[in-house]
């Protein structure tokens, strides 16, 4: 691999379909190092791990910035900066500098094996508490997605407005769900394995799962329109302070990702949206709907930046829940 650029990314994102242009340019993919979850990445970086680029989601950026991990982006070196989803990029402008290049977005929703569940029950998040599915459900090992689920199940659709009582209710609900959990999955591949074998039949999962599994001919679907709703998130690339390499290749990497070809690829293969608004518009609403990214009628909890103190509480509480408390 090209050791002129080190990328600390979610596992799975080393898929070369995302940065074809970079490979064409440099003859090789960058060096990847992986994390399963943002807090793990955060800690790894804090502990001195040196990478040039990383891939947090919206809620983490300010924490990373406060911890001194980030450097501003030189937007002049991002060719298609103007095509970037404006709402998303402006949300991460601190002191006049941009810190996040929004890149991928998607949904988290109730996902299930159509051949192994009672489809009638798949319209509510209550299935996660259903004793009939004890030991057959999987939840993400990811604090944001998990609390998105907890809040939605309790009718909270905007977590920036969540009260302590909401937080308690969500936690209680998750504790109950924990009793049914077979495994907490850390990335799509793991979940694919669990659902592919039929060991897990119901999950709270990212949109990549139905997309990739259907691609393999497995009867997995997601229902974004459950009564309680579903969640959405967006993530992007950041310029890490202390990167081991000069930044030229980093911007080549960013530009490769911004390429409309990458947008097409992520939508069709992964079922995710892309940060290049122009490219997304080119795909059109039908294309998006087909990829499972169209608008829904039910509430959508957007995983936007939130109160960091509450998020720390969520992190701690989730660990307790996972440990069975």
């Amino acid at each position, binding site marked *: 691999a090209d050791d002129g650029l080190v990328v600390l990314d979610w596992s799975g994102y080393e898929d070369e379909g995302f940065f074809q242009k970079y490979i064409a340019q440099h003859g090789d993919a960058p060096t990847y190092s992986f994390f399963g979850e943002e807090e793990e990445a955060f*800690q790894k970086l804090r502990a001195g791990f040196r990478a040039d680029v990383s891939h947090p989601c919206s809620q983490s950026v300010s924490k990373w910035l406060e911890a001194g991990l980030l450097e501003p982006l030189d937007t002049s070196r991002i060719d298609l900066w103007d095509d970037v989803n404006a709402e998303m990029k402006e949300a991460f402008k601190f002191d006049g500098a941009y810190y996040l290049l929004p890149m991928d977005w998607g949904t988290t929703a109730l996902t299930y094996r159509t051949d192994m569940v009672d489809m009638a029950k798949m319209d509510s998040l209550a299935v996660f508490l259903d004793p009939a599915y004890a030991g057959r459900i999987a939840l993400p090992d990811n604090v944001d997605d998990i609390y998105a689920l907890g809040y939605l199940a309790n009718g909270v659709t905007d977590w920036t407005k969540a009260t302590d009582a909401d937080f308690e209710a969500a936690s209680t609900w998750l504790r109950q769900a924990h009793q049914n959990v077979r495994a907490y999955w850390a990335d799509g591949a793991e979940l694919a394995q669990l659902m592919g074998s039929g060991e897990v039949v119901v999950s709270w999962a990212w949109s990549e799962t139905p997309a990739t599994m259907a691609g393999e001919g497995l009867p997995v679907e997601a229902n974004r329109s459950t009564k309680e709703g579903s969640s959405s998130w967006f993530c992007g690339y950041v310029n890490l302070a202390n990167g081991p390499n000069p930044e030229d290749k980093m911007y080549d990497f960013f530009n490769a990702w911004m390429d409309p070809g990458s947008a097409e690829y992520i939508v069709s293969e992964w079922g995710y949206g892309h940060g290049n608004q122009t490219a997304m518009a080119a795909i059109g609403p039908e294309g998006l709907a087909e990829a499972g990214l169209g608008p829904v009628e039910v509430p959508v909890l957007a995983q936007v930046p939130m109160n960091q103190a509450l998020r720390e509480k969520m992190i701690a509480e989730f660990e307790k829940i996972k440990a069975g408390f």
Partner: protein
Amino acid sequence: MVLISPTLVFTLLMLAVPLIMVLALSFWTQSYLTLDRSFSLENYKAAWTEPMYQYLMARSLRISIFVTALTVLLAYPVAYFISFHVTPKRKAMWIFLITIPFWTSYLMRIFLWKVILGYNGVVNGSLMGLGLIEQPLSFILYNQNAVVLTLAHSWVPFAILPIFVALERVDRSLIEAAEDLGDNRLRRFLRVTLPLSMPGVIAATIIVFIPTIGDYVTPRLVGGPNGLMISNMIELQFKKANNAPLGAALAISAMAIVTCVTLVFVWMNRKFMRGPK
């Protein structure tokens, strides 16, 4: 003194100093991103009073003790067989046979248990193929049973070796003397062979007990949501949970408990060792 000093200095620098720093760290506190270096017992209070940590500690101890007992029980007859039923020339070969499966990656071995015990794994596959079950069994993976089984498998050779050595050291004429004095097979095992092999059993116990409590890989891979152990929590505090001081306090507490349990074993060993020698 000159000879030993490089080793000693290295160990001091790499072990004593770090341990002291861990100890110091455990008295500090972390809030969000800042480390408060004033002395506080908060972490210990949490480690010893919060039900979660108490419970995890108890569970880890329970699992480790269970693994230890199972391992020793599994190992003893094998060690006995090699020592008493295998011709001397073949003994080395048998010991080698026992270690062969352990010369591949530790992680891979644990993972393979996942393959064996998994939902559509070897065990379920065979049982269903034989028509013994209709649905795959799910209680064999992602729980404490799986952790115990996998850990026992990982450590059983390390238990066989000391027990085998202890059995080899048992003077055969003692067993003949017991027979000569009128004991039958079972009674001479209980009265002579077993007590004399106790040092090996206790060594095996220590050898298995300590590392199992420090393992966070096995619980992670096969333990499922309810199979996590204290080491996972320590790792978590240092990494994801970003609370190194609490992690340090948990680590120090775990170490203290392990030390106490080990001392009990060592003391028992002393008691048995007083006999021979």
